């Protein structure tokens, strides 16, 4: 794969080129504390960028401040946990529209997103946050594996999970694996594992979770792990050598 091809594939740039708009209510927007008595207080979020030793990189630190005692926390999840333990029953964290907010770590980036109670994680990731890798072959039956993301280390059918259940989850998608040059991506290309490609990201994330769990998988391990992913093009034989090779390149490290 040429470098030229890989460049310019930042997710946002690609979505922009493809005419896609990232929708949603709370990407980078304000977060509020809605008290039971009716008052609403904006939670102070401090973002600090620090130059590192190189000229091109900066380090971003985000702090969330408790509206009651001004304690600072590194993540919204930590603040939530603090509020539940220290200020239970005082209210909930919402976005500017009054929706509940979940905090997610997706591909090593933090997200705080206002959600509706009926949203699946698949809908949140694909339709709201714009992760195009989260597909929907079976349209919500949990039958195909195309919506698979790695959620807290496990391959998860995101169409079968409510977004509201995922507060604090650590999520990996194929876009993140590609951005981080995970060997699975190049191995999948090398072994021609895709035809139409619609199911491919779901295989990739399922395989990623396998390699994390079993650094040196056998053929049977791979077959068992990928046994729930449908591919109508019938690419099944190619996934075995691709995952074996990727696992050997990862060398057991996550």
């Amino acid at each position: 794969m040429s470098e030229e091809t890989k460049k310019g594939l930042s997710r946002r740039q690609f979505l922009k080129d493809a005419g896609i708009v990232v929708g949603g209510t709370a990407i980078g927007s304000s977060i509020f504390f809605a008290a039971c008595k009716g008052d609403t207080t904006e939670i102070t979020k401090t973002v600090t960028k620090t130059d590192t030793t190189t000229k091109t990189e900066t380090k971003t630190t985000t702090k969330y401040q408790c509206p009651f005692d001004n304690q600072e926390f590194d993540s919204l999840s930590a603040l939530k946990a603090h509020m539940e333990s220290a200020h239970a029953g005082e209210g909930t964290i919402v976005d500017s529209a009054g929706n509940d907010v979940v905090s997610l770590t997706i591909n090593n980036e933090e997200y705080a997103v206002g959600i509706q109670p009926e949203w699946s994680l698949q809908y949140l990731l694909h339709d709201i946050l714009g992760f195009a890798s989260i597909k929907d072959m079976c349209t919500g039956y949990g039958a195909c594996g195309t919506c698979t993301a790695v959620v807290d280390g496990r391959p998860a059918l995101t169409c079968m999970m409510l977004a509201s259940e995922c507060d604090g989850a650590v999520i990996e998608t194929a876009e993140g694996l590609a951005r981080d040059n995970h060997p699975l991506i190049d191995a999948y290309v090398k072994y021609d594992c895709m035809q139409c490609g619609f199911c491919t990201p779901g295989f990739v994330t399922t395989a990623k979770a396998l390699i994390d769990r079993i650094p040196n998988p056998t053929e049977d391990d791979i077959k068992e792990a990928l046994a729930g992913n449908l591919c109508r093009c019938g690419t099944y034989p190619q996934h075995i050598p691709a995952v074996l090779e990727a696992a050997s390149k990862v060398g057991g490290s996550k």
Partner: protein
Amino acid sequence: MAERKQYKIIGQRGTLRRYGWTKAAGTAIYTRDVRRPGMLFAKAMRNPYGHARIKSMDTSKAEAYPGVRGILRYDDPEIVNSGHAEILMNESWHEGGPVGCIIAADTIQIAEEAVKLVEVEWEVLPFYLDMEETLDPGATVLYPNHFPESNEYFSWLAAFMGGDELIRAEPDLDAGFAEADIIIEDDIEYKKGYHAGSEPRSYVFEWGADGKELNVWSHSQTPSTEGPMAQGDKLLIPRMLGIPSANYKLHGTFQGGTFGGKISLEHIFVAVAMLARKVCAPLSFLQSRSDEQGREDAGLRAHLKIGVKNDGTITAIHLDPAIVEVGDGGVEGEAFIWAVVGGAKPADMIRELLKTTNIETDSKLAMTSKVCATSFRCEKNQSGYIHTKINQLVATKLGIDPVKVAEKNVHVAPESKSFEEVIKAGKEAIGWDSKWHKDGEKTLPNGKKHGMGFTYAHMWHAGGGASQFGSFGCHMDFDGSVTISSATSDVGVAAHTTYIMIAAEELGVTVDKIHYPITNTDIFAAKSPGGSYGCAANAPLVQMVAQQVKQKALAKFAPLFEVASGDELDMADNMVFVKANPSNTKPVAELCNKLGCGAFPIVGAIDATIGPGAQEVPYNCFQAHFCEVEVDPETGKVDVTNAVCVNDFGQMIRPESCEGQMYGGYYMGLGPNLMEENIYDAATGCRLNDNLCDYKYALMNDTAMPTCIAKEVTLDEGVYGNVGAGEPTGTITRGLINTAVCNALGINLNTNPVLPQDVLKALGKA
């Protein structure tokens, strides 16, 4: 026939699939991924009965539902006065069909909820699910607007496709049967199967340019204008909306696998475009799996009569009758009808493949209360199944090796060694000679019955050999890079990679110098994007445009070499050289730089071309497929423990793609053998397994992984001696497992899929 040549790029391994990285990374944008500013979502109401008509419809509650932005009803003036009232009707002839109204809302969830609020008084009407019941003279006529007399279907295309063009000699059934030692008779059935392409069909419409330009993102096999055998979106949608074709602006998206299931334009998509205009917003129509899962190929029931000599020589075949089920035939739901192609020629394969020409078919096309049948990977599924069963029935009856029956009867071009080579390779790979046994004679130590299966066929071009209608563009830019433009979309066969390899070969540049955007129908529209009209049809067109660009470029480079004309130059490996003195060579990029930007682009283009006939000569290249099964007599379960697929591709362009079609075809062919079946409720006409939980197709561990042997034995009629890869591989294997189960049990099973209950029933246990 082309002469075999040694190519630098064509036929060589290692060219990575273009857009493979994008697909693996999940950044490939399919139609279902498209989001536009202000976009709304549409949902169509669906018919809950086997056949029903709306007596009255109240949409007031839906209109009042928060987030609903517009409704299009069948009785709205936009529809009534459009001249195309069929776009949105008050009647649906099958359960799940779109009917009555479409609702646009802020989210898909709101649209779905709003549809539930539409109050309808239905008139429930008679329906038929069975192909023989619908042909009964007393049956209610289902489609009186089109066929007032009966439910038997006919069209000019059916007549053409089911016609006599493949008959090599006038059949003489009486003489053929008189010559036979034995007459074999049997009833066989091929059940309809669902394409189950990975991406449910979807469209996004957005009106721009003062409301006169229709921007479209579509999941369609026919986004362009197409040719005489099919009519595509760019032709039909503008015509029905009353706008110029030029104002139909298609935006290319990646395409989930289609396999023939998205080849017809359904009326409902035109209605969605109308609703997009009405609500003045981009409108996305994302069908659910259930919405599209009525689509099937054609079913078949036939009574077979086979005349055969004691040595296995087939002397005559009569299909009397052969009933092909075409669903609604497309007459009430489609803007262009493909039903007829799927299964309308049940004798097709045996006419092409067997020495005997004493073959006759008395076929009828039966219309039922189901969606229009369309070809599923290929229109030869039904005839391929018949062919496979005939070979097995003869072997079973005579107690001889089915491979020997094939060798006795196959019609091969005189100089072709293809058939014997693929048979030899396949037999060796699976160990046929040591493993094959007479029917029912082998029980394994684990108590299971052991069986060997076999089928074979020729390879066909799938769209024509020497040339076809179509258009391509190709241009070289100021830095020597090259772009190919066409309406071709890649539904999985690596079309872009393959055509890039052809262009690179012809131009003398490396593949990394060539870019190929996924779809362009602005000017290069008159071409099928994939599907049947694949490499065999497109290869000559790519060859032509690449040669045009090369010729023009060399003419411009000639002064830089101080030679009289471009004819004295050639290109290879991104270098231009003087033919008479190859050491006098310069890089293409350097020469382009010297010419300057004003000399570019250098353009080659093929406008719509009807080639010199697309006559198929289907006797050069062959394929053979073998399998081994274990059948549990206690449970009826069939385990495929070994499979070997051998295909002679003549000349492969991209070997990895050919192999992809081999294992891909094997898995797709396996489904109708073992598990795939649409199930309907006889009492209501409703589909019972319209989802991917209950409609099973093969997963990774459902069968042994096949051994695929790609051969290049005999060149075929493609410009490089190539032959179609996608259709033949997945078509002929649809009866393969059946033959193995028959061999295992010593009982002829005349249906597919072979489900455990079928096995137990055959064994007298159920």
